[in-house]
């Protein structure tokens, strides 16, 4: 078991293998995300029953919640990749971490925008300095810091290592920031975003789950595409890339 894990790890550590295997996975992932996302969103935005109190405005949830979740897990993914970069010096992890940052930041941004669109009808204001909104804003800032650092260092490898340190420090701090912000302003109730199964209608729940899964597939597709570009860029002088692009 351990041996095969190790083998898998080494395989994924090779850019060529990663490029090949993701090339084969990509169509499936695209298909999966289309299959989950299109019906999920159409049904969620158009046909799912309106919520008892909020009417139709709650429908933003089908974008808002997946985006929030992906923004968070994207950061965690980046931090884990950072650990791999620092401990095992794996090149693939450097490229993945670099690709995740802007995509995760975009999802954090989407989450903020949809949150504020949702906030207008529900709370009567576009923006509240509410715990969840604020901590998502800070998450976006953390992403931006990582991206800025990455952009500032010319050498790709040292940029990757420096951002790895920063994203790990950020990940360690994230729970503390989240907690303190939540404590600082407990304005709105967690219920609006956290869905316990008893509190949500199954019809809405399944739609939401489909959207979440679909957005995760989309996230995976985006990360893979961006990583593949990075691989070609970094390995441009290796023989397999030369052969691939036909030089």
């Amino acid at each position, binding site marked *: 078991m351990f041996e095969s894990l190790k083998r898998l790890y080494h395989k994924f550590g090779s850019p060529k293998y990663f490029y090949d295997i993701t090339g084969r996975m990509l169509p499936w992932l695209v298909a999966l995300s289309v299959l989950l996302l299109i019906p999920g969103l159409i049904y969620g935005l158009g046909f799912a029953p309106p919520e008892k109190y*909020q009417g139709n405005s709650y429908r933003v949830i089908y974008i808002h919640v997946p985006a929030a979740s992906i923004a968070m897990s994207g950061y965690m993914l980046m931090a884990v990749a950072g650990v791999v970069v620092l401990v095992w010096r794996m090149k693939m992890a450097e490229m993945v971490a670099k690709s995740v940052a802007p995509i995760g930041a975009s999802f954090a941004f989407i989450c903020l925008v949809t949150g504020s669109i949702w906030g207008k009808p*529900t709370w*009567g204001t576009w923006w509240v300095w509410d715990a969840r909104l604020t901590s998502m804003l800070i998450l976006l800032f953390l992403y931006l810091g990582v991206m800025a650092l990455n952009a500032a260092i010319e050498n790709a490898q040292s940029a990757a290592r420096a951002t790895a340190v920063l994203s790990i420090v950020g990940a360690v701090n994230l729970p503390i920031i989240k907690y303190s912000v939540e404590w600082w302003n407990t304005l709105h*109730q967690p*219920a*609006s975003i956290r869905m*316990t199964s008893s509190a949500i209608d199954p019809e809405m729940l399944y739609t939401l789950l489909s959207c979440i899964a679909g957005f995760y597939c989309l996230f995976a597709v985006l990360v893979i595409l961006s990583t593949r570009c990075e691989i070609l860029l970094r390995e441009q002088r290796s023989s397999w890339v030369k052969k691939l692009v036909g030089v």
Partner: protein
Amino acid sequence: MNPKRKQRLIIVLGILVAVGLATGLMTFALRENINLFFTPSEIAEGKAPLQRRIRVGGLVVPGSVKRGEDLQVSFDLTDNAQQITVRYAGILPDLFREGQGIIAHGKLISGTLVEADEVLAKHDENYVPPEVQEAIEKAGHPKKES
């Protein structure tokens, strides 16, 4: 013991002690009421400061909502033990209704009268915000099942 290993041991022990200390401080801090959240009972007992922005949480007493001119509204809040009155000028959230758990931000004017500048309601009927729920439980009443 070889000195290199001794150094390493000291570092590890230091980290353990530090983590322990930090956890201790955290648990102490968690027991303090630092977010200025008060229940109607606490306000009735005079624990909350006057003229300071505080948070009050409780359930809106059915039949207590009185609307005045210019969006003036007043209602009572209860934790099933004591009642206080909240005065508010502004648009109440869509989800505000009688029997609902809400959190009001504002100043304690006198005795049990709170002048709120912000009123927030929860979104779901089955859900009581943890602070409100805690306050109700503290006052000796278990959660009401709806």
